[in-house]
């Protein structure tokens, strides 16, 4: 009787551990709404900064996998690679045209997004992290262009908690799909 109880506790513990690991080691990029007490400009939704791609390859093969993916995307991978240390990591800086979409009064505005993505390659796992996400904003009389820090976040809900129809399901999905496409390509 006692052994059955112990085994039940053990199974529960393992399930809890797996669940904890999944939430700590996400496998997809996804925006999650934050619970701010006093939102000033609406409720912020934050993108998880890292995802983990688990496989059974060595660090060297994972590095080659990432490098070959970048090579397949660009004629000159050196253009986007800003730092690399074989076989541990590759950091790229990409500018994606029209990734940030805002629909306002039926008019769609598209802006470019620039971000750094680092691929940390080790045995059996590739860690992809997004940082320095910036959007190109045109402002002023002469439409001066300026890169503005997005901080891996979007304001998808108004101050009263209602979703912003101009963005939700449009911009967040577009960015998630773009980043998850990279993750899928490396699986």
């Amino acid at each position, binding site marked *: 009787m006692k052994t059955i109880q112990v085994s039940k506790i053990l199974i529960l513990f393992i399930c809890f551990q797996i669940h904890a690991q999944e939430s700590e080691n996400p496998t997809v990029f996804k925006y999650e709404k934050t619970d701010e007490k006093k939102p000033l400009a609406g409720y912020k939704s934050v993108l998880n900064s890292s995802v983990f791609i688990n496989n059974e390859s060595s660090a060297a093969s994972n590095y080659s996998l990432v490098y070959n993916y970048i090579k397949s995307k660009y004629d*000159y991978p*050196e253009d986007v690679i800003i730092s690399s240390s074989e076989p541990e990591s590759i950091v790229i*800086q990409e500018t994606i045209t029209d990734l940030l979409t805002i629909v306002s009064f039926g008019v769609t505005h598209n802006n470019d997004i*620039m971000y750094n993505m680092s691929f940390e390659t080790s045995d059996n796992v590739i860690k992809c992290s997004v940082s320095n996400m*910036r959007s190109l904003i045109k402002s002023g009389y002469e439409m001066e262009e300026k*890169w503005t820090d997005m901080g891996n976040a979007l304001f998808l809900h108004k101050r009263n908690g209602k979703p912003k129809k101009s963005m939700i399901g449009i911009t967040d999905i577009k960015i998630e799909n773009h980043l998850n496409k990279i993750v899928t390509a490396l699986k």
Partner: protein
Amino acid sequence: MKQYVFLLMFLISVNLSAQEAKSYYNVGNTSTQVKYVGAGYLPGTIVLKDGTELKGQVRGSSYSGNNVRSFKFRTKKGEKAQVFKADACKLVLYDGLIIISLPKKLKKMEGKRSFYVALYYGKYLTVFQDPDANVVERSPGSISFNDGQMLSYLMLKDKELHKISKLRFRKRMLEACNDSKKFVERAKDKKWFTYDNVYKVAHFYNQTRGQ
């Protein structure tokens, strides 16, 4: 006791090599438009001479013309700000820009230091704004293209100073960077090898040096 001393020295050397390997990237505007350092507090980093990073709020403090002479740093609003001059710093990250500290006398590479706004900061090659460079300005009643564009930059490669101008960009750049076969090969692409693309050109050289 000796073992502890060796361990300490080992840890310090690892830390130092890690500091040397640290890279800083431009995350802002990479065009050839003239860039200024603002006087409003923004999140930024000051990297001191010894490699220590101070992360907090940064702004330009004193100026001579449009050139910044010192920076103010504080960790939060309300706190008394510290002032940093170029002599104490290696570089400053502010508003997507990298502002590097280099000697005032660039030809001799010695003496008091000044801040220079870098267009591209790299391991082997750095391109930065020349404080004396001409900038395209619109005169009243005339149409001008490339308004605000810098007509020349200074380039630091292997501690040697080069001047690159819009007029003779290709010739000067090739003379300075002919030690990379891959770079020389790509420079044949006239659409890519242009003055307006100097950020990407400099980055490509840094990535392909020795290849």
